[in-house]
């Protein structure tokens, strides 16, 4: 029973990682860049929900919608100003700029909203379920987060496979040059990807903070890195991979805390990642690519 409750805590943490990783992996799949600022967009989303829902009792759904709008605008603006001019530049240049954007968002948040932590009120009002005479609890936040992650994952997969803009995204992801020749508006597709990714970040922020309520300007940084790891774990660019990677990462992290060492939990998580990548160099569900000469 103890094992089960640790497992549930792991899944609960993992579902948050999964939700963030979905945004990461989608942007990577299309724009082929590691958007290090993704975690900080989550933080901005968190603050938006905090100011609307937690401080001013705006209904949670409206608050999250508002945060999604703000983050979408933010994502598109960042893409236009900082990433778009670098299209065609070395990949690393974009990575470094993304890091600059991450610093920028963190420091702006600190100037705007100060560095003192805020305690977030959960947007989930439903209590969760208790099983086995109260021995096993699954919180409402966990259930909602898992459901939302699954819904988003499926919606994104359908969107990519079935709709016209989705197929355009796929084309851009496969071969940007060829997509351009086929008359696809590559810049538009990439902007759209960032818009969707940032909107997802807002949802992720709201749910991350509902489960783990401390909100500071650096709140997004570490979950962002962990989600990045989760995305790679599952095979970066693959949506189901990101979901599975996130859940697994959370489970490994919490089980190693419970049974091996609380201090070395991060080391263990990263070690498992390295081992997985050695066995499967493109992650769990990553596509094998053969390089053509």
């Amino acid at each position, binding site marked *: 029973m103890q094992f089960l409750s640790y497992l549930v805590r792991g899944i609960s943490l993992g579902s948050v990682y999964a939700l963030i990783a979905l945004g990461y992996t989608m942007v990577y799949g299309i724009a082929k860049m590691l958007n290090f600022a993704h975690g900080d967009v989550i933080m901005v989303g968190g603050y938006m929900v905090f100011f609307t829902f937690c401080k001013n009792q705006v209904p949670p759904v409206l608050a999250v919608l508002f945060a999604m709008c703000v983050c979408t605008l933010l994502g598109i603006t960042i893409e236009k100003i900082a990433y778009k001019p670098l299209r065609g530049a070395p990949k690393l240049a974009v990575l470094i700029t993304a890091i600059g954007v991450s610093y920028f968002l963190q420091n702006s948040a600190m100037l705007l909203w100060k560095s003192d932590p805020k305690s977030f009120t959960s947007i989930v009002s439903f209590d969760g379920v208790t099983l086995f005479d109260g021995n096993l609890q699954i919180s409402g936040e966990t259930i909602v987060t898992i459901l939302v992650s699954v819904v988003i994952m499926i919606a994104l997969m359908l969107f990519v496979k079935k709709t016209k803009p989705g197929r355009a995204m796929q084309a851009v992801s496969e071969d940007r040059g060829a997509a351009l020749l086929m008359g696809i508006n590559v810049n538009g597709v990439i902007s759209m990807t960032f818009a969707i990714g940032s909107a997802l970040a807002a949802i992720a922020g709201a749910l991350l903070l509902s489960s783990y309520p401390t909100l500071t300007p650096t709140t997004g940084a570490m979950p962002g*890195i962990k989600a990045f790891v989760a995305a790679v774990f599952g095979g970066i660019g693959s949506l189901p991979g990101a979901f599975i990677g996130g859940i697994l990462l959370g489970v490994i992290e919490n089980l190693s805390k419970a049974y091996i060492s609380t201090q070395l939990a*991060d*080391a263990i998580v*990263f070690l498992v990642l*390295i081992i997985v*990548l050695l066995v499967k160099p*493109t992650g769990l569900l990553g596509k094998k690519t053969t390089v053509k000469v």
Partner: protein
Amino acid sequence: MEKKGKMKKTTKTTLTTFGFVAVFWAVIEILTVSGHLSSKLNGLLIPVCAYMIMAISLNLVVGFLGELSLGHAAFMSAGAFAGIFFYTTAGAELPVYVSVPVSFLIGGLAAGILGVIVGVPVLRLSGDYLAIVTLASGEILKNVLCALYIGKDSEGIHMSLKDQFSLGMAPDGKMLMKGAMGITGIKKFANFSVGVVLIVITLIFVLNLMNSRAGRAITAIRDDEIAARAAGLDLTRYKMIAFVSAAVFAGFAGVLYALNYSALVADKFDYNLSINVLVMVVLGGMGNILGGMIAAIILTILPELLRGFSQYRMFIYSIVLIVMMLFNQAPAFVSWRQRLMARIRPKAAGKQDGKEEQ
């Protein structure tokens, strides 16, 4: 010696690079002797030297081997902790002219060993997967060092990965390493000349490597891995040469850095530091050693120059970083710059072109 202008390109690069170090050294010495060196600048000299070495060595991996490493700080950390551990224990009884060089050797060796351990699995991967594994290795090392307690008492050495209390030390015991607090009470040694000597050694090694058979093999791998393999190059061997040498020099940089402070903490060497060094390399132009060194100086001094802005300091730094990247790397800006150069100095612009393609 050939005439100016007809000089071989590599020779010219070597000369300008060493020339730059000489000028850098001379300027600082003149400032020191004439008493114009402020405490702030003086305090920055050693970190600047250490970061220059970091940038040069990371350039081996990122610029010449063409692999993205997000864990270079780990090697600096390994070097710093191994070197300083020796320096504060066994080395404490030796005269400095013995203990310091030995500390450097131990630091370099430790970083090199870590380089091999990380390199063997890592170099089988590529691209972003390699990046994440280097990042992971760095975080693992940081996490373990943060939890490592070592103490010594009359019964010998005690070690624990939990906390100080579980060492079960006798009351006469002395802590050598205190987890998150790291190693404290280091007798500061580093001085600027040591830093410059170390930079020169690093440059001699790296430039020689680049102009050697191995160096050409490494760049061949970067430019086309499949062709390089088809040509019969032992990919793993050359990749390891680049990766492990970079690690060794990062280890030296770590020892130099750590000798400049009385306390050494593992937290310092996190992925943020790796990324900062990466920024230096990218900003200086990948594969451009001189550029990397200049970027290291600028990026280390810049946050200090921004102190006048008080709480807006890091905010402005982030904007400067983004703008510098856009200006240096955005295709539109690059061609605009070249056009501008062409208008001012037609010849210079031509050369600039050549350099970018190098």
